[in-house]
Protein backbone atom coordinates (compact mmCIF):
# COMPACT_ATOMS: atom_id res chain seq x y z
CA UNK A 1 0.00 0.00 0.00
CA UNK A 2 1.46 3.44 -0.89
CA UNK A 3 2.56 5.52 2.10
CA UNK A 4 0.09 8.28 1.16
CA UNK A 5 -2.93 6.01 1.77
CA UNK A 6 -1.42 3.77 4.45
CA UNK A 7 -3.66 3.54 7.54
CA UNK A 8 -2.73 2.66 11.10
CA UNK A 9 -3.92 -0.77 12.23
CA UNK A 10 -5.99 0.90 14.91
CA UNK A 11 -7.23 4.46 15.01
CA UNK A 12 -5.32 6.66 17.49
CA UNK A 13 -7.25 9.21 19.49
CA UNK A 14 -6.11 12.24 21.47
CA UNK A 15 -8.44 13.36 24.23
CA UNK A 16 -9.17 17.02 23.63
CA UNK A 17 -11.19 19.42 25.80
CA UNK A 18 -12.58 21.33 22.80
CA UNK A 19 -13.37 18.63 20.22
CA UNK A 20 -13.62 15.72 22.73
CA UNK A 21 -11.47 13.48 20.54
CA UNK A 22 -8.96 14.03 17.77
CA UNK A 23 -8.92 11.03 15.45
CA UNK A 24 -5.84 9.88 13.56
CA UNK A 25 -5.95 7.02 11.13
CA UNK A 26 -3.51 8.15 8.44
CA UNK A 27 0.06 6.90 8.93
CA UNK A 28 1.49 10.14 7.47
CA UNK A 29 -0.34 12.29 10.05
CA UNK A 30 0.76 10.03 12.89
CA UNK A 31 4.39 10.22 11.71
CA UNK A 32 4.25 14.02 11.38
CA UNK A 33 2.95 14.39 14.95
CA UNK A 34 5.96 12.37 16.12
CA UNK A 35 8.58 14.61 14.51
CA UNK A 36 10.74 16.77 16.75
CA UNK A 37 9.72 19.96 14.91
CA UNK A 38 6.04 19.28 15.63
CA UNK A 39 6.72 18.22 19.24
CA UNK A 40 8.50 21.56 19.74
CA UNK A 41 5.07 23.23 19.48
CA UNK A 42 4.24 21.79 22.91
CA UNK A 43 6.73 24.30 24.32
CA UNK A 44 5.16 27.38 22.70
CA UNK A 45 2.01 28.84 24.18
CA UNK A 46 -0.84 29.60 21.81
CA UNK A 47 -1.62 32.93 23.45
CA UNK A 48 1.84 34.21 24.37
CA UNK A 49 1.61 36.53 27.38
CA UNK A 50 -2.17 36.13 27.91
CA UNK A 51 -1.51 33.68 30.77
CA UNK A 52 -0.50 36.71 32.85
CA UNK A 53 -4.10 37.94 32.58
CA UNK A 54 -6.12 34.72 32.25
CA UNK A 55 -4.17 32.17 34.27
CA UNK A 56 -5.73 29.22 32.42
CA UNK A 57 -4.31 30.31 29.07
CA UNK A 58 -1.34 27.94 29.17
CA UNK A 59 -2.43 25.89 26.14
CA UNK A 60 0.12 25.34 23.41
CA UNK A 61 0.39 25.60 19.66
CA UNK A 62 0.56 21.79 19.70
CA UNK A 63 -3.02 21.58 21.06
CA UNK A 64 -4.24 24.13 18.53
CA UNK A 65 -2.52 22.46 15.56
CA UNK A 66 -4.16 19.13 16.38
CA UNK A 67 -7.49 20.96 16.68
CA UNK A 68 -7.19 22.57 13.25
CA UNK A 69 -6.30 19.19 11.77
CA UNK A 70 -9.38 17.63 13.40
CA UNK A 71 -11.74 20.32 12.08
CA UNK A 72 -10.41 19.94 8.53
CA UNK A 73 -10.66 16.15 8.83
CA UNK A 74 -14.32 16.46 9.85
CA UNK A 75 -15.10 18.90 7.04
CA UNK A 76 -13.59 16.55 4.46
CA UNK A 77 -14.69 13.15 5.79
CA UNK A 78 -18.12 14.12 7.10
CA UNK A 79 -19.27 16.90 4.76
CA UNK A 80 -17.25 17.25 1.52
CA UNK A 81 -16.53 13.62 0.62
CA UNK A 82 -18.67 12.47 -2.29
CA UNK A 83 -19.63 15.99 -3.37
CA UNK A 84 -19.03 16.84 -6.99
CA UNK A 85 -16.97 19.98 -6.32
CA UNK A 86 -14.57 18.20 -3.94
CA UNK A 87 -11.59 16.23 -5.21
CA UNK A 88 -10.75 13.69 -2.53
CA UNK A 89 -7.20 13.42 -3.89
CA UNK A 90 -6.61 16.67 -1.98
CA UNK A 91 -7.51 15.06 1.34
CA UNK A 92 -3.99 14.30 2.57
CA UNK A 93 -2.68 17.65 1.33
CA UNK A 94 -5.43 19.43 3.30
CA UNK A 95 -4.81 17.42 6.47
CA UNK A 96 -1.04 17.92 6.39
CA UNK A 97 -1.37 21.66 5.73
CA UNK A 98 -3.88 21.97 8.59
CA UNK A 99 -1.63 20.11 11.00
CA UNK A 100 1.52 22.02 10.04
CA UNK A 101 0.12 25.51 9.44
CA UNK A 102 1.71 26.99 12.61
CA UNK A 103 4.91 24.94 12.54
CA UNK A 104 7.17 27.99 12.18
CA UNK A 105 5.88 29.86 15.23
CA UNK A 106 8.59 30.71 17.70
CA UNK A 107 8.39 31.66 21.38
CA UNK A 108 6.26 34.77 21.99
CA UNK A 109 6.35 35.05 18.24
CA UNK A 110 4.54 38.33 17.73
CA UNK A 111 7.09 40.30 19.78
CA UNK A 112 10.04 38.36 18.40
CA UNK A 113 8.94 38.97 14.84
CA UNK A 114 8.61 42.71 15.45
CA UNK A 115 11.97 43.14 17.16
CA UNK A 116 14.12 40.75 15.14
CA UNK A 117 12.38 41.15 11.78
CA UNK A 118 11.35 37.50 11.60
CA UNK A 119 8.42 35.91 9.83
CA UNK A 120 7.00 32.70 11.28
CA UNK A 121 5.45 31.85 7.93
CA UNK A 122 8.86 31.93 6.30
CA UNK A 123 10.11 29.54 9.02
CA UNK A 124 7.14 27.25 8.42
CA UNK A 125 8.23 27.08 4.79
CA UNK A 126 11.87 26.48 5.73
CA UNK A 127 10.98 23.68 8.17
CA UNK A 128 8.79 21.96 5.58
CA UNK A 129 11.32 22.30 2.76
CA UNK A 130 14.56 22.03 4.77
CA UNK A 131 16.54 19.15 6.20
CA UNK A 132 14.07 18.22 8.91
CA UNK A 133 12.13 15.22 10.14
CA UNK A 134 8.93 16.81 8.85
CA UNK A 135 10.43 17.10 5.38
CA UNK A 136 11.48 13.43 5.46
CA UNK A 137 7.93 12.31 6.25
CA UNK A 138 6.36 14.51 3.57
CA UNK A 139 8.93 13.50 0.94
CA UNK A 140 7.99 9.85 1.49
CA UNK A 141 4.51 10.70 0.20
CA UNK A 142 5.85 12.21 -3.02
CA UNK A 143 8.98 14.17 -3.96
CA UNK A 144 7.00 17.37 -4.56
CA UNK A 145 4.65 16.93 -1.63
CA UNK A 146 6.54 19.19 0.83
CA UNK A 147 6.38 22.01 -1.75
CA UNK A 148 2.64 21.49 -2.22
CA UNK A 149 2.01 21.60 1.54
CA UNK A 150 4.17 24.72 1.92
CA UNK A 151 2.27 26.45 -0.88
CA UNK A 152 -1.11 25.75 0.71
CA UNK A 153 0.10 27.21 4.02
CA UNK A 154 1.60 30.25 2.26
CA UNK A 155 -1.71 30.69 0.37
CA UNK A 156 0.15 30.58 -2.93
CA UNK A 157 -1.22 27.19 -4.01
CA UNK A 158 -3.47 26.90 -7.02
CA UNK A 159 -5.72 24.67 -4.87
CA UNK A 160 -7.72 27.65 -3.58
CA UNK A 161 -10.47 25.58 -2.01
CA UNK A 162 -7.88 23.73 0.11
CA UNK A 163 -6.27 27.06 1.06
CA UNK A 164 -9.65 28.44 2.13
CA UNK A 165 -10.19 25.57 4.58
CA UNK A 166 -7.09 26.64 6.51
CA UNK A 167 -6.92 30.31 5.79
CA UNK A 168 -9.96 32.44 5.07
CA UNK A 169 -12.48 34.52 6.97
CA UNK A 170 -14.16 31.38 8.27
CA UNK A 171 -11.53 28.69 8.39
CA UNK A 172 -10.51 25.80 10.61
CA UNK A 173 -7.69 27.86 12.14
CA UNK A 174 -9.98 30.63 13.42
CA UNK A 175 -12.72 28.23 14.50
CA UNK A 176 -10.29 26.21 16.58
CA UNK A 177 -8.47 29.12 18.20
CA UNK A 178 -11.68 30.95 19.13
CA UNK A 179 -13.17 27.88 20.83
CA UNK A 180 -9.86 26.81 22.38
CA UNK A 181 -8.90 30.28 23.62
CA UNK A 182 -12.37 30.75 25.11
CA UNK A 183 -12.13 27.38 26.86
CA UNK A 184 -8.67 27.95 28.34
CA UNK A 185 -9.18 31.58 29.32
CA UNK A 186 -12.47 30.62 30.90
CA UNK A 187 -14.50 33.34 29.17
CA UNK A 188 -18.00 32.50 27.99
CA UNK A 189 -18.30 34.71 24.92
CA UNK A 190 -16.04 32.78 22.50
CA UNK A 191 -18.47 29.96 21.94
CA UNK A 192 -20.47 29.27 18.80
CA UNK A 193 -22.03 26.25 17.15
CA UNK A 194 -19.14 24.90 15.12
CA UNK A 195 -20.88 21.61 14.35
CA UNK A 196 -23.67 23.52 12.64
CA UNK A 197 -21.21 25.59 10.58
CA UNK A 198 -19.39 22.46 9.43
CA UNK A 199 -22.71 20.86 8.41
CA UNK A 200 -23.64 23.79 6.16
CA UNK A 201 -20.23 24.26 4.52
CA UNK A 202 -20.16 23.50 0.82
CA UNK A 203 -17.15 23.20 -1.50
CA UNK A 204 -16.92 25.55 -4.47
CA UNK A 205 -14.13 26.09 -6.98
CA UNK A 206 -12.32 28.86 -5.08
CA UNK A 207 -13.54 28.60 -1.50
CA UNK A 208 -15.85 26.88 0.94
CA UNK A 209 -19.21 28.68 1.12
CA UNK A 210 -21.98 28.51 3.72
CA UNK A 211 -25.57 27.52 2.98
CA UNK A 212 -27.91 30.43 3.70
CA UNK A 213 -29.76 28.26 6.25
CA UNK A 214 -26.60 28.33 8.39
CA UNK A 215 -26.32 32.10 8.45
CA UNK A 216 -27.29 32.45 12.10
CA UNK A 217 -24.55 30.06 13.21
CA UNK A 218 -22.09 32.19 11.23
CA UNK A 219 -23.46 35.35 12.86
CA UNK A 220 -22.69 33.76 16.21
CA UNK A 221 -19.15 32.97 15.04
CA UNK A 222 -18.66 36.59 13.88
CA UNK A 223 -19.94 37.91 17.22
CA UNK A 224 -17.66 35.56 19.10
CA UNK A 225 -14.70 36.73 17.02
CA UNK A 226 -15.59 40.33 17.76
CA UNK A 227 -15.96 39.71 21.51
CA UNK A 228 -12.78 37.69 21.82
CA UNK A 229 -10.88 40.41 20.00
CA UNK A 230 -11.77 43.10 22.51
CA UNK A 231 -12.17 41.00 25.67
CA UNK A 232 -9.21 38.62 25.37
CA UNK A 233 -6.77 39.39 22.58
CA UNK A 234 -6.67 43.14 23.20
CA UNK A 235 -6.90 42.90 26.98
CA UNK A 236 -4.96 45.88 28.38
CA UNK A 237 -3.07 43.80 30.96
CA UNK A 238 -1.94 41.31 28.32
CA UNK A 239 -0.88 44.23 26.16
CA UNK A 240 1.16 45.58 29.08
CA UNK A 241 3.02 42.26 29.35
CA UNK A 242 3.56 42.32 25.59
CA UNK A 243 4.91 45.88 25.79
CA UNK A 244 7.43 44.87 28.48
CA UNK A 245 8.42 41.71 26.62
CA UNK A 246 9.06 43.71 23.44
CA UNK A 247 11.09 46.26 25.35
CA UNK A 248 13.23 43.53 26.98
CA UNK A 249 14.09 42.21 23.52
CA UNK A 250 14.84 45.72 22.23
CA UNK A 251 17.05 46.41 25.24
CA UNK A 252 18.98 43.16 24.95
CA UNK A 253 19.54 43.80 21.24
CA UNK A 254 20.64 47.37 21.91
CA UNK A 255 23.09 46.23 24.61
CA UNK A 256 24.56 43.64 22.27
CA UNK A 257 25.08 46.34 19.64
CA UNK A 258 26.82 48.48 22.26
CA UNK A 259 29.22 45.57 23.08
CA UNK A 260 27.76 45.29 26.58
CA UNK A 261 29.21 42.34 28.44
CA UNK A 262 26.30 40.18 29.61
CA UNK A 263 26.85 38.26 32.85
CA UNK A 264 24.73 35.52 31.31
CA UNK A 265 25.74 35.30 27.69
CA UNK A 266 22.66 35.18 25.49
CA UNK A 267 24.01 32.49 23.17
CA UNK A 268 20.53 31.60 21.90
CA UNK A 269 20.00 35.25 20.94
CA UNK A 270 23.19 35.99 19.00
CA UNK A 271 21.86 35.02 15.59
CA UNK A 272 18.64 36.93 16.33
CA UNK A 273 20.61 40.06 17.26
CA UNK A 274 22.53 39.80 13.99
CA UNK A 275 19.28 39.08 12.10
CA UNK A 276 20.87 36.02 10.50
CA UNK A 277 18.88 33.25 12.15
CA UNK A 278 19.51 29.82 10.70
CA UNK A 279 16.83 27.15 10.80
CA UNK A 280 18.93 25.14 13.23
CA UNK A 281 19.22 28.11 15.64
CA UNK A 282 15.54 28.92 15.29
CA UNK A 283 14.41 25.41 16.17
CA UNK A 284 16.40 25.55 19.41
CA UNK A 285 14.22 28.41 20.66
CA UNK A 286 11.23 27.82 22.85
CA UNK A 287 9.57 29.64 25.73
CA UNK A 288 11.44 27.72 28.42
CA UNK A 289 14.75 28.95 26.97
CA UNK A 290 13.56 32.54 26.71
CA UNK A 291 12.17 32.61 30.25
CA UNK A 292 15.47 31.20 31.52
CA UNK A 293 17.27 34.27 30.13
CA UNK A 294 14.66 36.64 31.56
CA UNK A 295 15.13 34.98 34.93
CA UNK A 296 18.91 35.34 34.77
CA UNK A 297 18.89 38.87 33.35
CA UNK A 298 17.27 40.08 36.58
CA UNK A 299 20.84 39.96 37.90
CA UNK A 300 22.41 42.00 35.09
CA UNK A 301 24.17 45.33 35.76
CA UNK A 302 22.11 47.18 33.17
CA UNK A 303 19.34 48.79 35.20
CA UNK A 304 16.79 48.90 32.38
CA UNK A 305 17.19 45.26 31.33
CA UNK A 306 17.10 43.99 34.89
CA UNK A 307 14.10 46.13 35.79
CA UNK A 308 12.09 45.04 32.74
CA UNK A 309 12.91 41.35 33.34
CA UNK A 310 11.95 41.67 36.99
CA UNK A 311 8.65 43.19 35.96
CA UNK A 312 7.91 40.46 33.43
CA UNK A 313 8.87 37.53 35.64
CA UNK A 314 7.05 38.84 38.72
CA UNK A 315 4.09 40.31 36.86
CA UNK A 316 4.80 43.82 38.02
CA UNK A 317 3.44 45.26 34.80
CA UNK A 318 3.09 48.80 33.47
CA UNK A 319 -0.15 50.65 34.14
CA UNK A 320 -2.00 52.50 31.42
CA UNK A 321 -4.28 55.40 30.58
CA UNK A 322 -6.49 55.75 27.54
CA UNK A 323 -4.69 57.74 24.88
CA UNK A 324 -6.13 59.77 22.03
CA UNK A 325 -3.26 60.38 19.61
CA UNK A 326 -5.20 63.04 17.72
CA UNK A 327 -5.72 65.25 20.75
CA UNK A 328 -2.76 64.24 22.89
CA UNK A 329 0.26 63.80 20.67
CA UNK A 330 1.67 67.12 21.81
CA UNK A 331 1.19 66.04 25.42
CA UNK A 332 3.07 62.87 24.57
CA UNK A 333 6.06 64.91 23.44
CA UNK A 334 5.92 66.90 26.66
CA UNK A 335 5.73 63.69 28.70
CA UNK A 336 8.66 62.26 26.81
CA UNK A 337 10.80 65.23 27.82
CA UNK A 338 9.71 64.97 31.46
CA UNK A 339 10.43 61.23 31.56
CA UNK A 340 13.96 61.96 30.41
CA UNK A 341 14.36 64.58 33.13
CA UNK A 342 13.09 62.08 35.68
CA UNK A 343 15.78 59.61 34.59
CA UNK A 344 13.36 57.27 32.80
CA UNK A 345 14.22 56.50 29.21
CA UNK A 346 10.89 57.09 27.35
CA UNK A 347 11.94 54.62 24.69
CA UNK A 348 11.41 51.89 27.31
CA UNK A 349 9.11 53.44 29.90
CA UNK A 350 6.54 55.46 27.95
CA UNK A 351 4.90 53.34 25.30
CA UNK A 352 1.88 53.84 23.04
CA UNK A 353 0.17 50.58 22.12
CA UNK A 354 -2.40 50.54 19.31
CA UNK A 355 -4.97 48.02 18.19
CA UNK A 356 -3.14 47.74 14.86
CA UNK A 357 -0.19 46.21 16.75
CA UNK A 358 -2.24 43.04 17.30
CA UNK A 359 -2.02 39.93 15.12
CA UNK A 360 -5.81 39.41 15.33
CA UNK A 361 -8.64 40.94 13.40
CA UNK A 362 -12.39 41.01 13.18
CA UNK A 363 -14.59 40.41 10.17
CA UNK A 364 -14.87 42.93 7.42
CA UNK A 365 -16.74 42.31 4.19
CA UNK A 366 -14.52 42.23 1.12
CA UNK A 367 -14.37 45.68 -0.29
CA UNK A 368 -12.78 46.37 -3.60
CA UNK A 369 -10.91 43.09 -3.92
CA UNK A 370 -8.88 43.35 -0.72
CA UNK A 371 -9.45 39.84 0.56
CA UNK A 372 -12.08 37.20 0.14
CA UNK A 373 -15.19 37.66 2.33
CA UNK A 374 -17.53 34.98 3.70
CA UNK A 375 -19.98 33.94 1.00
CA UNK A 376 -23.45 32.52 1.50
CA UNK A 377 -24.93 30.02 -0.91
CA UNK A 378 -28.53 31.06 -1.61
CA UNK A 379 -31.31 28.61 -2.45
CA UNK A 380 -31.21 29.61 -6.12
CA UNK A 381 -27.47 28.84 -6.29
CA UNK A 382 -26.46 32.51 -6.16
CA UNK A 383 -23.48 33.51 -3.97
CA UNK A 384 -23.93 36.56 -1.70
CA UNK A 385 -21.50 38.28 0.67
CA UNK A 386 -22.49 37.70 4.32
CA UNK A 387 -22.97 41.31 5.50
CA UNK A 388 -25.41 41.96 2.64
CA UNK A 389 -27.74 39.33 4.06
CA UNK A 390 -27.12 39.68 7.77
CA UNK A 391 -28.04 42.89 9.58
CA UNK A 392 -26.08 41.82 12.65
CA UNK A 393 -22.88 41.30 10.69
CA UNK A 394 -23.48 44.46 8.71
CA UNK A 395 -23.82 46.52 11.86
CA UNK A 396 -20.66 45.26 13.57
CA UNK A 397 -18.47 45.07 10.49
CA UNK A 398 -19.45 48.54 9.35
CA UNK A 399 -18.36 50.17 12.61
CA UNK A 400 -14.76 51.01 13.10
CA UNK A 401 -13.43 50.72 16.57
CA UNK A 402 -9.80 51.37 17.29
CA UNK A 403 -7.97 51.77 20.54
CA UNK A 404 -4.74 53.27 21.89
CA UNK A 405 -3.26 53.09 25.36
CA UNK A 406 -0.30 54.76 26.96
CA UNK A 407 1.78 52.48 29.23
CA UNK A 408 4.17 53.58 32.00
CA UNK A 409 5.63 52.31 35.32
CA UNK A 410 3.22 53.84 37.82
CA UNK A 411 5.17 52.48 40.82
CA UNK A 412 8.30 54.46 39.83
CA UNK A 413 6.27 57.59 39.09
CA UNK A 414 4.67 57.42 42.55
CA UNK A 415 8.02 57.13 44.29
CA UNK A 416 8.97 60.71 45.11
CA UNK A 417 12.24 59.83 46.85
CA UNK A 418 14.10 61.12 43.77
CA UNK A 419 13.03 63.69 41.13
CA UNK A 420 9.79 64.06 43.07
CA UNK A 421 8.87 67.42 41.54
CA UNK A 422 9.16 66.20 37.97
CA UNK A 423 7.29 62.99 38.78
CA UNK A 424 4.48 65.06 40.25
CA UNK A 425 4.28 66.99 36.98
CA UNK A 426 4.15 63.71 35.06
CA UNK A 427 1.39 62.36 37.31
CA UNK A 428 -0.63 65.50 36.75
CA UNK A 429 -0.28 65.21 33.00
CA UNK A 430 -1.24 61.53 33.08
CA UNK A 431 -4.03 62.28 35.55
CA UNK A 432 -2.94 59.50 37.91
CA UNK A 433 -2.76 61.36 41.20
Amino acid at each position, binding site marked *: MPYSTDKLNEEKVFKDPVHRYIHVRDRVIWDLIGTKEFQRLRRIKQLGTTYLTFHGAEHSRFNHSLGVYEIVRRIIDDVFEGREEWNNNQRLLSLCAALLHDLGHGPFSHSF*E*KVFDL*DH*EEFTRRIILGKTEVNKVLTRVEKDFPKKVAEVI*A*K*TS*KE*KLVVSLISSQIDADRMDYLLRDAYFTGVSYGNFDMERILRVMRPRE*DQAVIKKSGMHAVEDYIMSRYQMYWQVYFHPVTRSAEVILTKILHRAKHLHEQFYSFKYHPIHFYSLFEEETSLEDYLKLDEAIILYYFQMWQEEDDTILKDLCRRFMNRNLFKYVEF*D*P*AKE*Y*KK*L*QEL*SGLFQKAGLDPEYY*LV*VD*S*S*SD*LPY*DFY*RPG*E*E*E*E*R*LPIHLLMKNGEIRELSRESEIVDSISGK*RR*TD*HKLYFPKDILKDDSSKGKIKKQIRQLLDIQ
Partner: protein
Amino acid sequence: MLKDHAKVMKAIAASGEIIGRKKLQKMIYIAKKLDFPFHEKYQFHFFGPYSEELTLRIEELCNMGFLNEIKEKKGGYFQYRYTLTDNGKEFLALNEVEMPNLSPCLEDMNGQNSRFLELVSTVLFFDTLPKEEVKEKVFTLKAKQKYTEEEIEIAYTYIESLKEKTIH
Protein backbone atom coordinates in the same frame (compact mmCIF):
# COMPACT_ATOMS: atom_id res chain seq x y z
CA MET B 1 6.18 57.08 18.83
CA LEU B 2 3.45 56.39 16.31
CA LYS B 3 6.31 56.23 13.82
CA ASP B 4 4.64 53.55 11.72
CA HIS B 5 1.47 55.64 11.56
CA ALA B 6 3.51 58.66 10.49
CA LYS B 7 5.17 56.65 7.70
CA VAL B 8 1.82 55.66 6.23
CA MET B 9 0.71 59.29 6.43
CA LYS B 10 3.91 60.34 4.72
CA ALA B 11 3.15 57.92 1.88
CA ILE B 12 -0.34 59.34 1.41
CA ALA B 13 0.95 62.91 1.64
CA ALA B 14 3.55 62.15 -1.01
CA SER B 15 0.87 60.74 -3.29
CA GLY B 16 -1.59 63.61 -2.79
CA GLU B 17 -4.65 61.39 -2.99
CA ILE B 18 -4.88 57.61 -3.25
CA ILE B 19 -8.03 56.19 -4.81
CA GLY B 20 -8.84 52.65 -3.75
CA ARG B 21 -7.87 50.49 -0.81
CA LYS B 22 -6.41 47.87 -3.08
CA LYS B 23 -4.17 50.46 -4.69
CA LEU B 24 -3.04 51.75 -1.31
CA GLN B 25 -2.24 48.22 -0.14
CA LYS B 26 -0.18 47.45 -3.22
CA MET B 27 1.65 50.80 -3.20
CA ILE B 28 2.87 50.33 0.37
CA TYR B 29 3.82 46.71 -0.36
CA ILE B 30 5.83 47.70 -3.42
CA ALA B 31 7.51 50.52 -1.46
CA LYS B 32 8.36 48.03 1.30
CA LYS B 33 9.87 45.65 -1.26
CA LEU B 34 11.95 48.57 -2.55
CA ASP B 35 13.44 48.72 0.97
CA PHE B 36 11.54 51.73 2.26
CA PRO B 37 11.11 51.17 6.00
CA PHE B 38 7.45 50.14 6.22
CA HIS B 39 6.88 47.45 8.84
CA GLU B 40 3.35 46.31 8.08
CA LYS B 41 3.25 42.55 7.74
CA TYR B 42 1.96 41.26 4.42
CA GLN B 43 0.60 37.87 3.46
CA PHE B 44 -0.49 36.50 0.13
CA HIS B 45 -4.26 36.66 -0.23
CA PHE B 46 -6.72 35.94 -2.99
CA PHE B 47 -5.96 39.29 -4.65
CA GLY B 48 -2.20 39.34 -4.00
CA PRO B 49 -0.12 40.68 -1.08
CA TYR B 50 -2.36 42.17 1.58
CA SER B 51 -1.69 43.55 5.07
CA GLU B 52 -4.36 43.41 7.74
CA GLU B 53 -2.06 45.54 9.88
CA LEU B 54 -2.10 48.29 7.26
CA THR B 55 -5.91 48.12 7.04
CA LEU B 56 -6.13 48.59 10.81
CA ARG B 57 -3.59 51.40 10.76
CA ILE B 58 -5.59 53.23 8.10
CA GLU B 59 -8.74 52.81 10.21
CA GLU B 60 -6.91 54.23 13.20
CA LEU B 61 -5.68 57.21 11.21
CA CYS B 62 -9.23 57.89 10.01
CA ASN B 63 -10.56 57.64 13.57
CA MET B 64 -7.83 59.99 14.79
CA GLY B 65 -8.94 62.52 12.20
CA PHE B 66 -5.56 62.49 10.45
CA LEU B 67 -6.87 60.87 7.29
CA ASN B 68 -9.89 61.78 5.26
CA GLU B 69 -11.75 58.83 3.76
CA ILE B 70 -14.43 59.29 1.14
CA LYS B 71 -16.61 56.28 0.36
CA GLU B 72 -18.11 56.10 -3.12
CA LYS B 73 -20.38 53.50 -4.62
CA LYS B 74 -18.87 52.14 -7.79
CA GLY B 75 -20.67 49.35 -9.62
CA GLY B 76 -21.14 46.44 -7.27
CA TYR B 77 -18.68 47.62 -4.62
CA PHE B 78 -17.50 50.64 -2.66
CA GLN B 79 -14.39 52.60 -3.49
CA TYR B 80 -12.45 54.72 -1.01
CA ARG B 81 -10.37 57.87 -1.49
CA TYR B 82 -7.70 58.88 1.00
CA THR B 83 -6.14 62.28 1.66
CA LEU B 84 -4.45 63.89 4.66
CA THR B 85 -6.56 66.24 6.79
CA ASP B 86 -5.19 69.54 8.11
CA ASN B 87 -4.70 67.89 11.51
CA GLY B 88 -2.85 65.09 9.78
CA LYS B 89 -0.58 67.57 8.02
CA GLU B 90 0.15 69.30 11.32
CA PHE B 91 0.95 65.96 13.01
CA LEU B 92 3.22 64.97 10.16
CA ALA B 93 5.04 68.30 10.31
CA LEU B 94 5.82 67.68 13.98
CA ASN B 95 6.69 64.02 13.45
CA GLU B 96 8.59 64.23 10.20
CA VAL B 97 9.86 60.92 8.89
CA GLU B 98 12.79 60.87 6.51
CA MET B 99 12.32 58.58 3.55
CA PRO B 100 14.43 60.04 0.74
CA ASN B 101 13.27 59.22 -2.79
CA LEU B 102 9.92 57.87 -1.60
CA SER B 103 7.88 60.61 -3.28
CA PRO B 104 8.91 59.99 -6.91
CA CYS B 105 8.27 56.24 -6.48
CA LEU B 106 4.82 56.74 -4.98
CA GLU B 107 3.84 59.43 -7.47
CA ASP B 108 4.73 57.05 -10.26
CA MET B 109 2.80 54.13 -8.69
CA ASN B 110 -0.18 56.38 -8.06
CA GLY B 111 -0.35 57.04 -11.79
CA GLN B 112 -0.73 53.31 -12.52
CA ASN B 113 -3.99 51.38 -12.25
CA SER B 114 -4.62 48.94 -9.40
CA ARG B 115 -4.79 45.94 -11.76
CA PHE B 116 -1.22 46.63 -12.89
CA LEU B 117 -0.03 47.26 -9.30
CA GLU B 118 -1.59 43.93 -8.31
CA LEU B 119 0.58 42.29 -10.97
CA VAL B 120 3.72 44.19 -9.92
CA SER B 121 3.22 43.31 -6.24
CA THR B 122 2.60 39.65 -7.14
CA VAL B 123 5.81 39.55 -9.18
CA LEU B 124 7.66 41.09 -6.22
CA PHE B 125 6.08 38.60 -3.81
CA PHE B 126 7.73 35.78 -5.77
CA ASP B 127 10.99 37.64 -6.37
CA THR B 128 13.11 34.73 -5.13
CA LEU B 129 11.81 32.51 -7.94
CA PRO B 130 13.15 32.42 -11.52
CA LYS B 131 11.16 34.50 -14.00
CA GLU B 132 9.60 31.47 -15.70
CA GLU B 133 8.24 30.20 -12.38
CA VAL B 134 6.94 33.66 -11.53
CA LYS B 135 5.05 33.69 -14.82
CA GLU B 136 3.62 30.29 -14.01
CA LYS B 137 2.50 31.58 -10.61
CA VAL B 138 0.84 34.62 -12.16
CA PHE B 139 -0.97 32.52 -14.78
CA THR B 140 -2.27 30.00 -12.22
CA LEU B 141 -2.94 32.21 -9.19
CA LYS B 142 -4.23 35.16 -11.19
CA ALA B 143 -6.02 33.25 -13.92
CA LYS B 144 -9.10 35.44 -13.65
CA GLN B 145 -7.10 38.63 -14.24
CA LYS B 146 -5.87 37.18 -17.56
CA TYR B 147 -2.44 38.83 -17.43
CA THR B 148 -0.38 38.35 -20.58
CA GLU B 149 3.35 37.53 -20.94
CA GLU B 150 3.84 41.04 -22.26
CA GLU B 151 2.25 42.59 -19.18
CA ILE B 152 4.52 40.52 -16.94
CA GLU B 153 7.56 41.74 -18.88
CA ILE B 154 6.30 45.31 -18.47
CA ALA B 155 5.95 44.68 -14.72
CA TYR B 156 9.59 43.56 -14.54
CA THR B 157 10.72 46.65 -16.46
CA TYR B 158 8.59 48.82 -14.23
CA ILE B 159 10.17 47.35 -11.07
CA GLU B 160 13.61 48.18 -12.46
CA SER B 161 12.51 51.76 -13.20
CA LEU B 162 11.26 52.12 -9.62
CA LYS B 163 14.55 50.77 -8.27
CA GLU B 164 16.34 53.45 -10.34
CA LYS B 165 14.16 56.10 -8.70
CA THR B 166 15.16 54.93 -5.21
CA ILE B 167 18.83 55.74 -5.84
CA HIS B 168 18.52 59.12 -7.61
